């Protein structure tokens, strides 16, 4: 996985200027997170139809104009859920008892690793789509725009992410905390179109 150091710094609210006192801590924490994480993911694709300009995914209407815009022109949609696993949360919790600096940097590293992992999954999905003559739209997650977090319930019903140890609480937050759900629209490749 290609982990972006500048992404980590961005999460920490830092400028991109080299900070000698922090760089070693970032590297050390990145190692901890890399060792602690056990990345897992689930993917499933669903038929996509349209009704009054809104997407109908696997027979269920989703009233979200932002998602409709994201999925415009698509004929199917891939759902994925990805997680770094429970041990990462444990490491971050553990650090909080000793050093908040370390905890904050671990947290930022874990976020960057999650992002890199999602990019990797996204690439696999794009490659698979390409083989079937499909191109992918950018990924979109519940909570973006007018697609409320409530949609997490639907995602969970369809994918059963409990199988990879990801659960949803009553406030629609996922555990382990370094978990992501996303939708990726796909449409047939045409001459002259690009992603």
């Amino acid at each position, binding site marked *: 996985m290609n982990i972006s150091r500048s992404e980590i710094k961005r999460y920490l609210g830092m400028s991109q200027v080299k900070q000698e006192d922090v760089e070693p801590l970032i590297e050390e924490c990145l190692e901890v997170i890399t060792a602690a994480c056990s990345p897992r993911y689930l993917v499933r694709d669903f038929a996509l139809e349209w009704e009054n300009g809104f997407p109908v995914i696997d027979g269920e209407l989703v009233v979200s104009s932002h998602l409709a815009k994201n999925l415009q022109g698509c004929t199917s949609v891939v759902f994925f859920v990805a997680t770094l696993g*429970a041990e990462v949360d444990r490491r971050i919790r553990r650090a909080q008892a*000793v050093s908040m600096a370390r905890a904050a940097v671990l947290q930022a590293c874990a976020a960057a690793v999650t992002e890199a992992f999602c990019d990797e999954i996204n690439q696999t999905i794009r490659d698979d789509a390409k083989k079937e003559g499909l191109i992918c739209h950018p990924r979109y997650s519940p909570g973006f725009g007018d697609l409320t977090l409530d949609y997490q319930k639907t995602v969970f019903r369809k994918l059963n992410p409990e199988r990879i*140890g990801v*659960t949803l609480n009553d406030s629609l937050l996922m555990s382990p905390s370094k978990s992501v759900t996303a939708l990726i629209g796909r449409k047939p490749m045409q001459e002259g179109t690009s992603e």
Partner: protein
Amino acid sequence: MNTIRERIGNEWVFFDGGTGSILQKMGLKGGELPERWNLTHPAEIKQLYRGYLEAGVNVFNANTFGANRLHYPDEVEEIITAGIELAKQARLEAGREDACIALDIGPSGKLLEPLGDLSFADAVELFAEEVRAGVKAGADVILIETMSDSYEAKAAVLAAKENSDLPVFITMTFDAEGKLLTGGTVESIVPMLEGLRVDALGMNCSLGPREMIPIIRRFTQCASLPIIVNPNAGLPETRHGQTIYPVDSDEFAEIMSEIADLGVQGLGGCCGTTPDHIRKLISAVSKKPFKPNSRKHRTVISSYSNAVEFGPKPVIIGERINPTGKKTFQAALRNNDIDYIIAQGFQQEDAGAHVLDVNVGLPDIDEPTMLETVVQKLQGVTALPLQLDSSNAKALEQAMRVYNGKPMINSVNGKPETMAAVFPLVAKYGGVVVGLCLDETIPSTAQERIEVAKKILATAESYGIDRSDIVIDGLAMTVSADSSSGAVTLETIRRCTQELQVHTILGVSNISFGLPQRNLVNAHFLAMAMQSGLSCAIMNPNNDQMMAGYRAANVLLGYDPQCTAFVDAYAGTAEAAGTAANKTSITDAAGDLSLAHCIERGLAGPAGQAAQTLLTNGKDPLALINEEIIPALDTVGKGFEAKTIFLPQLLMSADAAKAAFAVIKEQLSGKEQQKKGTMILATVKGDIHDIGKNIVKVMLENYGYDVLDLGKDVDPQVIVDTAVKHNIKLVGLSALMTTTVVAMEETIKLLRKTKPDTRIVVGGAVLTPEYAERIGADAYAKDAMATVRYADQVFAEHND
């Protein structure tokens, strides 16, 4: 006809196969809850059961896997009753009255605290509701399956045991490396489940039979109970949007026949397997000679992920989590400063402890609650198994109940009343128990101590506790008071090991009370005890000299192959450096810096040392705070506000200041420091992200505030009650998501109604000044420094 409890260890027992895949073929839609079909599609459910009954299974699952209150808030009993009633009918219709109906219990679908938001007690109650319904409806056996978290598995087993007399079988789900989703292994989960006295255990789902073989071998190595193996029909593949399980019934039966030869006792299938798979499996295996599992007599304790096995190399049990004779520790207990206690655990782990002893007994605190709290906190952050150390049986029980693994228990002795109090707990929850070789008196000879040990072993046996779950303490007594006591203890250890073949333990440092150079005596005594066969030492792993004795003895006794551990610890250290073992960390390379400089540069170790040096040189603690620490923190805080330094540096400085404060606190020990005020911090109901709140907390504390940290997922009423009780002037609330800002608003409303003079400051990822105003907060703080500034403002007004 023998009962299923007798049959499972004495003959082949065959289980059924997949449910979901078959119901989907009958028309169950993706996302539809299958258990509802017990009410809506009785004919199909009976047909499912009949398929397996006719294939010849001995145990078949009622369709109750997910029938818990999270999926069916008001219908648990109805759905389970229907599922079992249909099973009874199917059994009668198939002429298979010999077959057993299993109440099938799957995972709740939620992660338990602290990973998720389901409390252990609520998890037990969730499963208990299923068990009560299943028992009432007439299930013959309880099969807990597809568990991928040790803690949830424990909750389900306790619920089953506490609400029924039925046999309890449990199968866990592992990945290809043999790990549970929450990090456990075969070796860590088996001791816990056997300690909980299930009737059979094993694995199901996730993998096909071939992938399970290496994991099954690990089961047969460490488990004593009958082993059940229910694989999927291979690893699922997706073809044209359909999930396909590639292993057909012939191949399945062939591999399962190999698996039967590995020494398992129960066989069946899981996802993708059909009555056809099971029929062929039964015909391939039933004629094979049956071999029961063997008792392993291993002494093992475990955490959620680690197993620690005793012998021959001694186990180090860190003794520092104990208030005896430690003023700062006692103060931490009284002030509920759990982080201080946790930090004692980390230090010992870093120093090489394998197990942590946990003793939080003080006359004036609620020990049961405190032990339970500390155990839950510790097991959330360390993978070391714990030794629960208390003379209070209630405290032990509460801690054993919530412990995520198989604990060590300290202790019983030869007095009947201590054994009567503790052994029933061990028989219920599992554990390895320390038995002290004393009763009404402390025997002065090895022979008398051996007699007490025998009595303890015999009494344990009468509770069904194997001697492998007893560790005898040979009693290290002060050698300066009686010069024979060292030899008596060593002789006791030797005879326990050789004659009683039981593991042994010593609180090593007791031997040297009253002597100078105690470490010298302790280290030698430890080495001698190791030669006599000592299995574990309760000691201070932070003590370099004792650790040196331990490592050297391991080398000399052949417990350190190629001397690897010894070389790792000492290679490159100077021969003369007696108390070396300086751990280098990136924050420790400071040299001679002033305290203020250490704090500004965020060097925690040196900051603590600098504070210590200043105090030793007679500097007044309060002057140290006001002249060194506060100005340094201020410089850093201003730099942060001016964006010349950033969050990590701000926090590194905060950590350094904290280290200095800790040293000063030790010095003041007991005397109150001047505080600016007391405020509440909490992450609101429903929100489980608390790192932001904890950052704010550490900053506030450094700036002289007392923080009542109510934690995360805090009920509004708890916040209001605490504010009223302590007459709190300022409450800080944190929320991460739009969904939890709702709970923030609710908390603010309730506070306004009940305690209108309290100010409220809010923060969190989705909040803005406008949003904060809209939900009725007094202020929005964009970061930790802003919270400190706002607190300064509020308390300045208040104190004027």
